[in-house]
């Protein structure tokens, strides 16, 4: 077990923890001593892994199975955390969906679903968690945006629009919640070597490596490290910021 764990005892909820960045965030948070609630949609999908992760790091990792677009289920999850742990220190809004298509190919039903998942559900969770955090007079909310929300990108207008919305909701929530000592920040990763990206990267985006100053994809752990910083007391005066973790990527 690591010494000097910087999230020791902090109660954290991480959404979309079944793979990729979300999974890495839970693992890093547990490594830093956090009491983690890991969300995924599919019942039982995190049971074994969360148990092993908790044992390895001598902390608690509790799976919470709910669909973030279901308001009642979100509320139930937040109430469960409050009732079991007494507070919520950190919310990481990581769950999201992504599509790739040129402007003429945008499917509007899919676009509406993507806004529901990437934006509306995020606002709902910010609203619910902040109601607990307001009483505590403490909290850190971390929203997953993307470099495409900052810069825009060809061939992902819909996804970029949702991630741009994440930036503006983050800045607005930061202003509204600052007086309650609740910090709200976003992380804007560049291209991250998750299984999901690697699948499409090999087929469609290999040429994009030239857009990355550092010449390589990020690892999920590098995004998780930024989440550790924003969730910890190392960033107590940081709010309303969009932290790019992109290895100097430019589209």
């Amino acid at each position, binding site marked *: 077990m690591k010494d000097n764990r910087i999230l020791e005892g902090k109660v954290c909820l991480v959404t979309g923890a079944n793979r990729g960045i979300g999974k890495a965030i839970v693992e890093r948070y547990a490594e830093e001593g956090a009491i983690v609630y890991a969300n995924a949609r599919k019942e039982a999908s995190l049971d074994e892994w969360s148990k092993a992760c908790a044992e390895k790091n001598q902390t608690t990792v509790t799976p919470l199975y709910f669909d973030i677009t279901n308001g009642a289920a979100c*509320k139930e999850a*937040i*109430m469960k955390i*409050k009732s079991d742990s007494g507070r919520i220190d950190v919310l990481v809004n990581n769950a999201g969906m992504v599509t790739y298509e040129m402007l003429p190919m945008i499917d509007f039903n899919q676009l509406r679903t993507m806004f529901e998942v990437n934006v509306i559900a995020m606002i709902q969770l910010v*609203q*619910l968690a902040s*109601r607990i955090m*307001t*009483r505590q007079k403490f909290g850190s909310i971390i929203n997953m945006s993307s470099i495409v929300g900052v810069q825009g990108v060809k061939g992902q207008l819909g996804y970029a629009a949702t991630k741009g919305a994440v930036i503006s909701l983050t800045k607005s929530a930061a202003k509204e919640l600052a007086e309650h000592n609740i910090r709200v920040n976003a992380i804007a990763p560049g291209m991250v070597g998750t299984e999901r990206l690697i699948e499409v990267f090999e087929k469609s985006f290999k040429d994009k490596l030239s857009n990355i100053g550092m010449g390589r994809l990020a690892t999920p752990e590098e995004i998780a490290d930024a989440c550790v910083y924003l969730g910890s007391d190392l960033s107590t005066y940081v709010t309303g910021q969009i932290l790019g973790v992109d290895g100097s990527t430019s589209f």
Partner: protein
Amino acid sequence: MSILEKYNAVFATVFNVNQTVLSDEFNSKSVENWDSITQLSLVTAMEDEFDIMMDTEDILGFNSYAVGKEIVSKYGVTI
């Protein structure tokens, strides 16, 4: 303290009034300092007092002493 006494105490504290003025006519139209900020404080104080978490529609609808009783009863707080 009975549930009604707790309910009244929350109102008295949030609106800074004596409990004797509380009645079914105590609402957002009749009370001068009942604005959206006070309503949010009222809801938060009720949630803390009774350990409940209201839905958004109930937060918005909590605009009178009488309606408030109906709303909290939805969360198992029967007055």
